[in-house]
Each structure stands twice: as structure tokens, then as C-alpha cells.
């Protein structure tokens, strides 16, 4: 008798899974594979002063954001005002990685639109980005004071994402 209900169970299980996926899945947003890991070692020339190096050690000490961006990335422009707000109002240090970009254009762009970054590394070949598991721009990592990757946000940071996910996480780790 119970045998008759097996196909129904299978059907409902399938529908349930599909329904859940419909609401909750974001197939184009990957969770970072490096969550909880140390930030990979890197040493990039600083964008403004190429003799100086921006390394992974600079990210230790307090919770910080690492933002991967480029001038050719339209969406990164949309994020600019939010980043400026984060650094000036919320006082969270933001470090930047300029991904496969032209250094002069990047400097000009920052001078024109404002520079929210404490330091920026010039990742001309994109190797550091691959080490971080970056697959598109903009992407922003939340780094713990010990230098571990806490979270990766894919895409533009807007006020909603900041209020719901990023800022609570930062506060948890000692940011103001």
C-alpha cells in the first residue's frame, strides 16, 4: 500500500528542491573558496608609488576591506560613492587592487572621482586576482585582523548589502 506513495514522495521532494532553488539560489554569485583561509601572500607595486610594495602583511592588524576594481569596469564606478562613504563615515579602511588596468588612467580616475583607498596595488597581469579567486569586478573581501578572509561580496556594494551583511560582520570583528 505504501509503495503507491513512493512516486509522490519523489515528485514532492523534487518540487521542493526546485522551489527552494528558485528563491534562494544565485547561480552567478559564487561563494569564495577561501573563506576562513589566510589571505594569499602577494606583493604588488603601489599604484601611486611603484617602488613601494603593497603586501598581504599590510592587511593585518584590524578588520579591513579589500576591493578589486578597474577603470574599464563600469559597475566599479557605480560603487565609488559607497566606498567613499564607507571610508569617511564608517571609518573602515579600504585597500584596493587595480585589476589588469592602465596605471595612468587609474590614477587620473581616482584623482577625478575621489580616492577611498588606503593603499592600492597594481595587479597588471591579474595573477593576484586569480590567487584570490576573483572572477569578475567589482569584488570586495572582508579581512579579519589576523589576515583571514571572512567574506567575499560579488558585485557593487550598495547601502542594503552594507547594512545587512558587511557592516554587521565588520562590527563583529572590532570595526566601529
Amino acid at each position, binding site marked *: 500500500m505504501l509503495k503507491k506513495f513512493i512516486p509522490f514522495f519523489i515528485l514532492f521532494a523534487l518540487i521542493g528542491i526546485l522551489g527552494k532553488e528558485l528563491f534562494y539560489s544565485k547561480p552567478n554569485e*559564487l*561563494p*569564495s*573558496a*577561501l573563506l576562513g583561509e589566510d589571505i594569499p601572500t602577494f606583493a604588488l607595486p603601489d599604484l601611486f608609488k611603484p617602488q613601494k610594495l603593497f603586501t598581504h602583511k599590510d592587511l593585518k592588524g584590524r578588520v579591513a576591506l579589500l576591493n578589486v576594481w578597474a577603470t574599464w569596469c563600469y559597475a566599479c564606478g557605480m560603487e565609488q560613492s559607497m566606498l567613499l562613504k564607507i571610508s569617511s563615515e564608517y571609518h573602515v579602511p579600504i585597500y584596493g587592487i587595480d585589476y*589588469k588596468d592602465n596605471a595612468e588612467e587609474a590614477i587620473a580616475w581616482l584623482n577625478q572621482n575621489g580616492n577611498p583607498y588606503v593603499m592600492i596595488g597594481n595587479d597588471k*597581469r*591579474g595573477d593576484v586576482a*586569480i*590567487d*584570490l*579567486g576573483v*572572477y*569578475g569586478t567589482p569584488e570586495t573581501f572582508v579581512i579579519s585582523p589576523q589576515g583571514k578572509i571572512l567574506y567575499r561580496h560579488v558585485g557593487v556594494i550598495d547601502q542594503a548589502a552594507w547594512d545587512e551583511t558587511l557592516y554587521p560582520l565588520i562590527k563583529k570583528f572590532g570595526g566601529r
Partner: protein
Amino acid sequence: MSFFLRILIFISFFNLSYAYSPSSLPSDQLTRFQTLTKEIRCLVCQNQNIADSNAPLANDLREKVFTMMSEKKSNEEIKDYLVKRYGEFILLQPRFNKLTFILWTFPLIGLTCVLFFLIRFIKPSGK
């Protein structure tokens, strides 16, 4: 040079880094390169592998694979490297572990069931 061509070159700006040339590989290594790149997903494309894509990230990853192959790394090491940074998602052929083992054993189980049902069908009451 036509305006159109200028646009195209601008768009393909990042492909100018043709420092690597897989066609310089000996033929068995070339086959290995082609097979390997067909097993790695292009993350910014809709369901393509990095062999069949011109996206900048795909080109970068192909170059990375080429570089690692030149450093005599094995396929496993290359895949591990990519998975560490991008997750299992980047491999188009899921690796055999306890989560995916059903994918690999299902056909066998299925065939066994078919045999079972067929025997029951031919001899319904075990005559």
C-alpha cells in the same frame, strides 16, 4: 584603420598578452592542454569551458594552465590549484568524493535495477 577595427582591438585589449603559445607544445602535451582546458569552467561565461571562450578571465586561466604545464605540474596539481581558489565549481567534471559518488555509481545501479525488473517481467511468478 577603420573605426570598427579600433573598437575590436580595444575590446580584445587583454588578449594582446599572447606570450604563451600552446601551439608550441609537442602534440601529446597539446592534447593534454586541450583536454584539460575543456574541463575547466569559464566563470564569467554562461556554461562554457575556458578552451572555447575569449573572455579575459578565460584567457588568463588558459595562460595559467599553460604556465603550470611548463613547470611540469600534473593535472591533479593544476586542478587542486584552481579548486583552492575558485571552489569545486570550476571543474566541469566533478571529482569523485562522498558527495558526488552517486553521480558515478548511478548508471551501474540503474542497469542492475533494469536487469532485476526484466527478470521479474519475464518470469512473473517464478515459474
